[in-house]
């Protein structure tokens, strides 16, 4: 047992801090700090600066831009990025389809897709969920039928995040309806969003934003060489995609930064003769959230140190569960601090109310998603109870 960082890791940390706080434009970081929605161009600027510095996909295999970092270094990188209000490299590229192609794709597919995926010259979106297939993802009904050297895709995907910006979608499709188990009849296809027969429809969410979409496939013809890996192995790839990372599952740097911001906010909101921070109930909520965060962050550090070659590990379910809960707790707290100043959501130049307070309620509402996406928290509990505790339901 050893507390603290080695001199090398300390040095690494200051390099990361220096980079994220100086190389990424302040206007983007200010928007992230205030919870204001980022434009496509904001994401691209930030991602490309990281890419040029070799920091967009450090966890990929070295030949495709990876850095061979230790898990602790990866944690430090993410922590410093989040603390500096830097938007992460696009997750669909860097954390989802990139690692899948790098692990399961053919050499041709790697050469074709990995460089533009790393540089964000392709913007990917995810085609997993369907209207009738949420937590029961394996029941998905979008079909792909081989016709010559093309698949013909028909069906519908939903909750496609930022699909309005996307160039390509990686989609789970049913290629063998007769498979003994549903999971064995699923494949993963790469489909351009401008292919004839693909249409996208926005879904407005409770925060008023347009973040997710429905995607429809009507006789979309997809060349067979855009099949990832082998036919009918898509379920394995999807499981890999959802479970291959432990270090980044719980956004502890993000939570830490929000909690530090909450203190500033509570010190800025007048209450009685003083400020909200002087209220012992507010101070106790901060103290308790800090304890919750510490327990989570230490668990990230402890679990990350034991990771086994990127294989899915049920322990990451704890991190997803607590990470999402704590994200939500902190945003709920910030919305409470904003109080009546949160009642108008509109950012106005003349307003005496700070942007964070205008944004507090929509951001709070938006992040109710965190305990639903990526496997709902109930699914995570199921993974823990069966995978770790051996309680076979």
């Amino acid at each position: 047992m050893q507390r603290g960082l080695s001199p090398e890791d300390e040095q690494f940390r200051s390099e990361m801090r220096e980079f994220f706080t100086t190389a990424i434009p302040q206007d983007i970081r200010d928007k992230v700090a205030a919870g204001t929605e980022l434009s496509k161009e904001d994401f691209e600027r930030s991602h490309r600066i990281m890419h040029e510095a070799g920091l967009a996909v450090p966890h990929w295999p070295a030949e495709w831009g990876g850095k061979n970092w230790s898990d602790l270094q990866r944690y430090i990188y993410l922590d410093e990025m989040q603390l500096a209000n830097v938007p992460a490299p696009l997750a669909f590229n860097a954390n989802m389809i990139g690692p899948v192609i790098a692990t399961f794709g053919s050499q041709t597919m790697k050469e074709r897709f990995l460089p533009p995926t790393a540089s964000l010259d392709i913007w990917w979106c995810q085609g997993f969920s369907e209207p009738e297939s949420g937590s029961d993802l394996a029941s998905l009904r979008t079909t792909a039928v081989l016709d010559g050297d093309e698949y013909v895709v028909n069906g519908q995907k939903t909750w496609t995040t930022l699909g309005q910006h996307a160039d390509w979608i990686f989609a789970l499709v049913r290629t063998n309806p007769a498979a003994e188990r549903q999971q064995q009849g699923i494949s993963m296809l790469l489909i351009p969003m401008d292919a004839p027969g693909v249409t996208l429809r926005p879904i407005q969410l409770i925060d008023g934003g347009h973040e997710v979409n429905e995607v429809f496939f009507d006789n979309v013809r997809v060349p067979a060489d855009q099949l990832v890996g082998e036919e009918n192995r898509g379920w394995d790839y999807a499981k890999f995609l959802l479970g291959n990372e432990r270090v980044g599952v719980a956004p502890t740097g993000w939570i830490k930064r929000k909690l530090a911001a909450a203190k500033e906010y509570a010190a800025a909101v007048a209450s009685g003769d003083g400020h909200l921070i002087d209220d012992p109930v507010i101070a106790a909520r901060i103290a308790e959230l800090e304890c919750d965060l510490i327990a989570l962050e230490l668990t990230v550090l402890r679990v990350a140190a034991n990771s086994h070659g990127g294989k899915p590990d049920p322990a990451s379910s704890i991190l997803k569960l607590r990470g999402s809960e704590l994200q939500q707790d902190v945003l709920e707290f910030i919305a409470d601090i904003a109080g009546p100043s949160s009642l108008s959501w509109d950012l106005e130049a003349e307003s005496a109310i700070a942007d964070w307070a205008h944004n507090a309620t929509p951001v709070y509402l938006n992040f109710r998603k965190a305990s639903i996406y990526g496997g709902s928290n109930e699914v995570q509990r199921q993974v823990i109870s069966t995978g770790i505790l051996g309680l076979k339901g």
Partner: protein
Amino acid sequence: MNFEFTEDQIALRDAAREAISRHRTEPVPGTAPHDGELWKALAELGGLGLPFPEEAGGMGAGPVEAMVVALELGRAGVRTAYSETLTAAAMLGDDELFGAAVEGSRVVVPALFEPMRAWSPTPVDVRADGDALTGVREPVPYAAAAPAVVTTAATADGVGIFAIDNPTFTGARLDLAGVSARRVDGDEVLVQRAINLGTLLLSAEALGAMESALHLTVEYLKSRKQFGVPLMKFQTLTQRAADMYTSLELARSAVYYLAMTLAIRPDDAIGVSRTKVIVGKSGRHIGQEAIQLHGGIGMTAEYAVGHHTARLTEIEHTYGDTRYHLSRLARGVSEYGGLDLVS
């Protein structure tokens, strides 16, 4: 940053586990009796002197090793004066009682509670004029075993530490008026440092108790049948077991980290308070759910699970509960911005 036990620490854990299992007796409700045989075994293991330097008569290990032993005690559900003796020894400095405490030839406990007063590490109604003490300490742990005592008192020059070789108890009550006490070198800094160590050991014991409470619960859900099926067929139960596991692992991270912290910063009061809060919340959650998920059997004295909950409750109320530590932390939250755990 490394949370792994070393080979030596694993060997110590296995030795402690073996010694404890040889001497384990069934738990009883209420005040814990002192078990002389188990005590001797822990002393032979060197367990009582682990965190103290060799030149002082200790084993020259550290808080991590002491934590390893406390974790095993908690897991086995045996109650001993382990955390008490190490806390007392940490207050004794070079007093002659130190050697007896860490060799196990004399049970020595701290007397730090004042009757009907919320926890305070600083003595309030216990005072000293020279070596003459006044005031009452109650409850004194393991008083029935007639231990020697280390206590604190308010003196003209701040908090004083006093050793009492042969106190007379009335039940768990120790009236200090007229007892023969000896002032020990050290002030409130040393007292707090000893309490920090004691809190770590209690937290480790709580972690062991949580581990066992969850283990028993999981086994019960697998084996107990109702409506013709094992209880684990009911998601309303398994989802709650998953939450218990999450609470357990969060507490484990905090306890291990505190041991590493105290090894380099024995006066880190904030770290102690944070751990006590984390362990307090996890302990209450797991203790309560373990009984509930067992149903009626969890209420019985002959079944182990409820005793773990009793011990978790006792630990929650020792050296400051969640409320006390949250309140201490809350007073300081404006003094810093974000958290930094790795430096």
